């Protein structure tokens, strides 16, 4: 009997179409898997078995009736808890939203419903997406299925872990500074941050509005492409949404699998290597480059000198915007309320109790950075750095079609290891942050396991804005070559999780 939890979404699509499997069978298999392993992994904050099965039954009935269905109809999906889902709890990983049931659907939620994909539940995350480990979740950390003592990345550790633990074939993530790509890297899965504006943010609880972007999480490049095309497209409810057609990601991925990259110029970003980068991570990265060369690509080195300021600029812009975005959690209209007599005291007490330390740290940072007299020195300077980084990218993309780097400097670290050292934690995102500052798309796919610890490392591909399809082509080409060495997807090599009865 096929274990459908191990199949790719593309395989599920074909099997559903041919009648080899039903959506109810697929959905139930994943619900069973969640029941078996999520006690150990804790990828999910909320599981909606009933809702997912109801959608699955509808899809099966519609298919039986000969209805024309969307491509991914019947394929189950996990949704990061940052996305509002009507009638399903949405907390963004924060205690301040415990028990809140949104009265509306995010645009991406609506698209998933229209695509008739059973929503398995909501995945764990660092509170309001602030973190790189899920340790800042108000509901306890998620564990990396490769090693339960290690972090699954963050903020989208729940979505990535759900894929690595075979609890879901697809998941939604959000990426403000790497929250899709870094978890993908440390769990040997695939994650894509689309071009800023490529996917509607309406209904995604805002962290830093000018940096946030929703994107697909999957175990293969092609699966990510399938989901990307469902999520993307112009939305009149999001003023920053791009009014242009969704990139042809699936075609690009299929073209990439044909394996010819002749004429493609690939730039290696000099600044994203060396000090702080684990040897095994770099070794796998360079092997990846060799594969690309073997497929005909030309590899050159490029320099992006302003990247050295990216982390500093990011940690001014993000807290500034977040301090404003998180002001609405004031106990008046929704969420937690700690009554203290007057409205000011109630607001203060609610926020004191409802927010975790990292959230408070960033609200204080951002409030300070935006204060009169400091604005120019902090927020203003950070915006200038942002412009410089955009120029670095523009210059680099004049020389090559895509840029590449290791996604993260290291393999996953141990839970608790960096919890008391915010700077060490922040450094984990040094390679992913520049793409957010520039609004360009980025992908992480597995490059292999580091020799020294046998843990996953990631390969990052960055493309110019609007050119998301390029990443899919090159990513799919590389993925296919690497899989030849691995004898199949790397994810399959994850250790078996102990199944609770």
């Amino acid at each position: 009997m096929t274990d459908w939890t191990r199949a790719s979404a593309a395989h599920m699509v074909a099997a559903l179409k041919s009648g080899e499997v039903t959506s109810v069978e697929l959905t139930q298999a994943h619900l069973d898997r969640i029941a078996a392993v999520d006690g150990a992994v804790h990828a999910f904050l909320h599981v909606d078995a009933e809702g997912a099965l109801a959608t699955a039954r509808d899809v099966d009935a519609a298919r039986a009736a000969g209805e024309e269905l969307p491509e991914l109809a019947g394929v189950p999906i996990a949704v990061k808890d940052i996305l509002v889902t009507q009638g399903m709890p949405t907390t963004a990983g924060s205690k301040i939203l415990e028990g809140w049931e949104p009265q509306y659907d995010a645009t991406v939620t609506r698209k998933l419903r229209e695509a008739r994909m059973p929503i398995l539940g909501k995945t764990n995350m660092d509170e309001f997406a602030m973190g790189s480990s899920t340790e800042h979740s108000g509901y306890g950390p998620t564990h990396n299925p490769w090693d339960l003592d290690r972090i699954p990345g963050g903020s989208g550790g729940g979505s990535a872990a759900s894929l690595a633990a075979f609890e879901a074939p697809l998941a939604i993530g959000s990426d403000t500074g790497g929250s899709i790509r870094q978890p993908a890297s440390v769990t040997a899965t695939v994650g894509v941050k689309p071009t800023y504006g490529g996917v509607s943010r309406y209904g995604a609880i805002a962290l830093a509005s000018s940096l946030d972007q929703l994107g697909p999480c999957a175990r293969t490049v092609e699966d990510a492409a399938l989901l990307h095309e469902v999520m993307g497209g112009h939305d009149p409810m999001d003023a920053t949404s791009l009014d242009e057609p969704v990139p042809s990601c699936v075609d690009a991925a299929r073209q990439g699998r044909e394996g010819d990259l002749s004429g493609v110029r690939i730039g290696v970003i000099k600044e994203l290597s060396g000090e702080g980068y684990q040897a095994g991570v770099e070794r796998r990265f360079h092997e990846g480059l060799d594969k690309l060369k073997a497929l005909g690509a030309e590899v050159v080195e490029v320099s992006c000198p302003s990247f050295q300021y990216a982390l500093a600029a990011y940690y001014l812009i993000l807290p500034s915007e977040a301090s404003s975005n998180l002001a609405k959690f004031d106990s008046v209209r929704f969420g937690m309320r700690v009554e203290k007599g007057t409205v000011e005291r109630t607001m203060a007490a609610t926020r004191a109790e409802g927010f975790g330390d990292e959230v408070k740290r960033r609200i204080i940072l951002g409030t300070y950075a935006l204060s009169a007299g400091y604005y120019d020195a902090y927020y203003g300077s950070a915006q200038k750095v942002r412009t410089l980084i955009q120029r670095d990218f523009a210059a680099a993309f004049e020389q090559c079609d895509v840029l590449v780097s290791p996604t993260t400097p290291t393999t996953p670290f141990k839970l608790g290891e960096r919890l008391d050292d915010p700077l060490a934690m922040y450094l984990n995102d040094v390679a992913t942050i520049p793409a957010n500052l520039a609004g360009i798309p980025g992908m992480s796919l597995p490059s292999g396991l580091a020799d020294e610890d046998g843990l996953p490392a990631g390969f990052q591909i960055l493309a110019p804005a609007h050119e998301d399809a390029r990443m899919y082509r090159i990513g799919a080409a590389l993925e296919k070559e690497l899989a030849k060495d691995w004898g199949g997807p790397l994810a399959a090599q994850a250790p078996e999780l102990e199944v609770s009865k």
Partner: protein
Amino acid sequence: MSAMTYDKAMEQFDPVFGIEVHVELNTKTKMFCGCANEFGAEPNTQVCPVCLGLPGSMPVVNDKAVESAIRLGLSLGCSIRESSRFARKNYFYPDLAKDYQISQYDEPTCFEGSLDVVLDDGEVFTIGIERAHMEEDAGKNTHVGGTGGIQGASHSLVDYNRGGVPLVEIVTHPITGAGARTAEVARAYVATIRDIVKALGISDGRMEQGSVRADVNLSLRPKAVAGEDQNAVPFGKRSETKNVNSLRAIERAIHFEATRQADLLLAGEPVVQETRHWHEDTGSTTSGRSKEQAEDYRYFPEPDLLPVEPSREWVEELRGTIPEHPAKMRARLKEEWAFSDTDMRDAVNADALDLIAASVAAGAKPQAARKWWMGELARTANDRGVTLRDLPVTPQDVAQLQGLVDEGKINDKLARQALEGVLAGEGSPAEVVESRGLAVVSDDSALEAAVDEALAAQPDVLAKIQDGKVQAAGAIVGAVMKATRGQADAGRVREIILQRAGVEG
């Protein structure tokens, strides 16, 4: 009690003032979402995730509001920025759903204009406009228990229907040189803004509903001594009186603040830079929060919205839709209509100018239109406690009514009856005349019979007329009018009487 008065204050000090006017736009939907923008609905029925600030929701700019703001800016002589941004003004308050207001800060859409205001005696005063920017309104708090204020209330209720309603805030430069006429100038300025927004059709301009609201800044500085330039004297500390919401209140608030500040200054006490609350009932202000402890609003560009970038072509197209300045229009209409100063002032004060203009446009003579609107209709509105435009009568009705009089189909008395019918909802004047059978009797044979009957009843009158006492005919005219229930043409009746008497009229 101090013996200080406004006039005395003005003798000793030179006032400097500035006004911020908030205009609520009458767009169909709110500034950043699709909710209805209507006054008076049940609390929290015109709300959605966006204007409630629910997590995940995002604003989208209402293009119609941008259009209104640009047209208003052009009317105020402002330049229109090629690229302007929205900004977030951050502060916590329960009526502010997102705990930040989307406004414009360092890049307002409309900036640097000027506006001429005409005082009652015709003097023209030019007000410098610093900016006109777009923003959203907040919800409305109702404090329950206590005196209705926030202090002592047991709890507060919030209605978010008003949250997100589009506003344009017009900010003046500091206004100097108005001297003792400061209160008058301030009033005329706000009245002019109100007239402009109504003429543009971008707001109903109803101050009593808060559609136009003013904050009045005032400071006093010493009068320049001989040989000194008044403009070289530094400004004093100012107060900002919030929510002064009628033209009369603007004058009163300036009177009160000038007097209060003069008192303080003469007593050697400092004027505190602060916001003050206006109390309509007592005509006084009380201290609000001090500006020294003012909040830091931590403005920064709104990352959820793109810059507003109106094309030059569009701005020029909008410039073509700007109506005449209200004062210029008044001067022109006064001339065209041959109204006296009093006629004009009364019409303006009764807010009847555009009704008269519309009646004239529909064919009525100006004086006749004025007569109806300022007479019969003004009385009715007053009796009913409504404004003229709330009456169920249109300028077209008035023009038609006067047309019927001019054609001799009805006389003035019948016209009043016809109007009564219109006001009672019986239809247009012509329909009422028809349905009530109000037409003047113009059939000579019927009139002749009625005249003969009246003359027979009062045989001495004919002789008096023939003796040259022509005014005696009035008694017969009255009798005929009575007999015909007012439907006779009095002029024609008189002619017939004189004919019968063999006298030429």
